[in-house]
């Protein structure tokens, strides 16, 4: 029997990637290819009062424009189906796509964008989650009455995840440790900026060269936009020049595809690094309030966590993210009483989307610093506090999942050994197989 699994092996196709011969989406060229640039909202919140392309169409090299009216299918995409491909009316964040200009080259298309006479009435935006939750706050999503995401049809705006009785646990505890954690917005900064190439092939199919991280998800989102069945789209992908979650979001495929359909030509749409950094979805900001109840001997008996996530102007992945974050936000610890209150709040920022370690990362950072603060409060060694509370096989997490194949203690023992830290025998004798 062969035994390749477990062996160190060089990366398949790695040679081409490190020597620069691998072909990425931006390397794809077709004769007669057209280029797209997008007109973006200059304001964080506003209403389009006028959109005049007469000067744009006079710019040398401009082939035409693309607006919401050109979309053969629906002007909707996104995991939660709430984003507009091109937004002709109620602008929700600075940089939101309004329309696109197609040109013989990128300079012409950009000159065309700059020639658009855009009249926008600027409205007061809201950027602070806690302001956005107040009743008199500006409303980010037109047609709604609140800036909080509703997790179900009953209008629940806080996702509760609970185990045991957190009030009783906090009452029983010898110590209460509280902490607020504020975590910033991070960009994916992948080496390959967002790009797409689309064309109609000789069978009349729409072919799209994509760097999607999730071809199946994205194809399902794109078909309704184009009004095409899956068999009419040849979605070519598989190689990604770094994603980190940023390519779980469609930024170019929809607009490139629409332009190819309208102008019956190969079209490339790529963002500059600046556009990518300034306008695309990011790892959104999180604020956590932790209240942990702990006994003198180090046992954690209660964990109450309030989670506030800045979703930006659309859902992105945020509702999913707050729930997933919450399921694990009490850390890899056996805690009998847990209450998670997760909130997704809309503000006038670009949408928050997935990013490496998505959502779980944010909760783990807060949970782990909280553990070190608890150790300090108890005057206990931080290793010992974690050893005492770490999951063993069969323990239960916040949303009542039972953990199996646990290795928290084993990871800690090895790390301590590598760091030259001598753990006491009573800790070294502990195993994840039993308590």
């Amino acid at each position, binding site marked *: 029997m062969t035994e390749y699994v477990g062996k160190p092996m060089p990366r398949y196709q790695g040679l081409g990637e490190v020597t620069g011969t691998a072909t990425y989406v931006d390397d794809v060229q077709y004769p007669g290819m057209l280029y797209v640039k997008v007109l973006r909202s200059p304001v964080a919140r506003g209403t389009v009062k006028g959109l005049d392309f007469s000067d744009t169409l006079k710019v040398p090299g401009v082939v035409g424009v693309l607006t919401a009216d050109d979309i053969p299918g629906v002007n909707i995409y996104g995991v939660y189906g709430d984003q507009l491909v091109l937004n002709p009316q109620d602008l929700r964040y600075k940089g939101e796509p309004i329309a696109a200009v197609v040109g013989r080259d990128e300079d012409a298309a950009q000159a065309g964008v700059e020639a658009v006479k855009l009249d926008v009435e600027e409205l007061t935006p809201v950027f602070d989650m806690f302001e956005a939750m107040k009743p008199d706050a500006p409303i980010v999503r037109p047609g709604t009455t609140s800036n909080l995401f509703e997790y179900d049809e009953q209008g629940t705006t806080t996702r509760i995840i609970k185990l045991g009785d957190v009030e009783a646990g906090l009452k029983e505890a010898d110590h209460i440790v509280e*902490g607020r954690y504020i975590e910033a917005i991070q*960009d994916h900064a992948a080496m390959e900026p967002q790009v797409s190439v689309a064309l109609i092939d000789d069978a009349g199919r729409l072919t799209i060269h994509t760097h999607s991280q999730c071809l199946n998800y994205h194809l399902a989102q794109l078909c309704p936009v184009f009004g095409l069945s899956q068999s009419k789209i040849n979605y070519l992908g598989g190689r990604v020049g770094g994603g980190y979650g940023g390519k779980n979001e469609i930024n170019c495929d929809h607009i490139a595809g629409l332009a190819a359909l309208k102008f019956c030509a190969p079209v490339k749409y790529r963002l500059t690094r600046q556009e990518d950094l300034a306008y695309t979805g990011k790892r959104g900001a999180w604020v956590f309030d932790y209240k942990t109840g702990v006994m003198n001997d180090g046992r954690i008996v209660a964990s109450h966590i309030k989670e506030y996530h800045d979703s930006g102007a659309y859902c992105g992945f945020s509702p999913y993210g707050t729930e997933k974050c*919450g399921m694990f936000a009490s850390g890899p610890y056996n805690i009998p009483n847990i209450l998670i209150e997760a909130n997704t709040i809309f503000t006038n920022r670009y949408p928050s989307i997935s990013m490496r*370690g998505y959502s*779980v990362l944010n909760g783990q950072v807060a949970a782990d610093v909280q553990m070190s603060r608890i150790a300090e409060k108890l005057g206990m060694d931080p290793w010992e506090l974690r050893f005492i509370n770490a999951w063993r096989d069969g323990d239960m997490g916040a949303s009542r999942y039972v953990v199996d194949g646990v290795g928290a203690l084993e990871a800690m023992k090895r790390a301590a050994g590598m760091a030259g830290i001598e753990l006491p025998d009573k800790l070294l004798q502990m195993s994840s197989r039993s308590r």
Partner: protein
Amino acid sequence: MKKRGKAMSLVLHPTGNKGAGDPSQAAIALRPDGTFTLIIGTADLGQGSNTILRQFAADALDVPIENISVNNQAGNVAPICTGSFASRVTLIDPHAVVNAADDLKDKVVNWAAGMWEVAPEAVTWADNSVFVEGDEEKTMTMTEVGEGVVGSAELMIGTGAWYPAPFTEHDPETGAMESVGAISFGCAVVEVEVDTETGLIDVLSVIQVWELGKAVNPLTCKQQINGGLSVGLGFALAESCHPYYPDAAHAVEHLTDYYVPTFADYPAEISHGIEEVPHPAGVKGAKGFSEGSSTVPISAIISAVHDATGVWITEVPLTPEVVLKALEA
């Protein structure tokens, strides 16, 4: 003044979509010359999915790995992969690959049994060939199988699919969601030096250990652990698109205002460790972990800064401005 501090951290990283229901499919085609093409719909973004799925395919087929090529760019014929996210591929895709290999082996064994007029149970698939034990006339190399299949007007493509569990929603009252794919565990030990005059933090050393079920490819595991550190360093110390959050003033629009760590910012000493507790849900015990390599250094850095200065700075990232304000408070 420069102050040094040391701290550890422990985090988890779950693999698979929340609520499950996230399938992957795979197909393996036998080529006319007896080699194989593994066809998947899985995007390889550098994490190495093509590399490890080829390893799984070679072991499942018991053939030399050189005989397997990977096609993950097949566009409109690619099998479905829910996506290269949620660290799900290492847990889920290998099942689909193994199932596809088993299906292909079944088909080839049945075909060979028909050719030889024996029961399928009499045919063995091993060592890149099929044969009937003890009968020297009834043996074919895979090359002969490939040719023979074409000659008898057959097509041999094995298919397989898998997910950890059907999709479930949270219970509306309790938030209960019982299914999680698998969970990996990371521990870091970090030493930092804080310059209390400039607020700059220098990460001197990072030890990072992951319990990841099974190190399918220890080389790419090492690359993920040490590479993922850069996202963690940036998150902990530098990267913020809205530096005066929640205020939108000075929102970053250029790389000159947004500092992504480079190798120059890497600690002088980095080391990684791997611990393997085979996970019951994974093929050969494997589960995903890599994204967590960006998580585990962050809290260790924050706690090490506290060890150095006595101050808990819980507004991340710990830029010089944030650090100085916290130290002065």
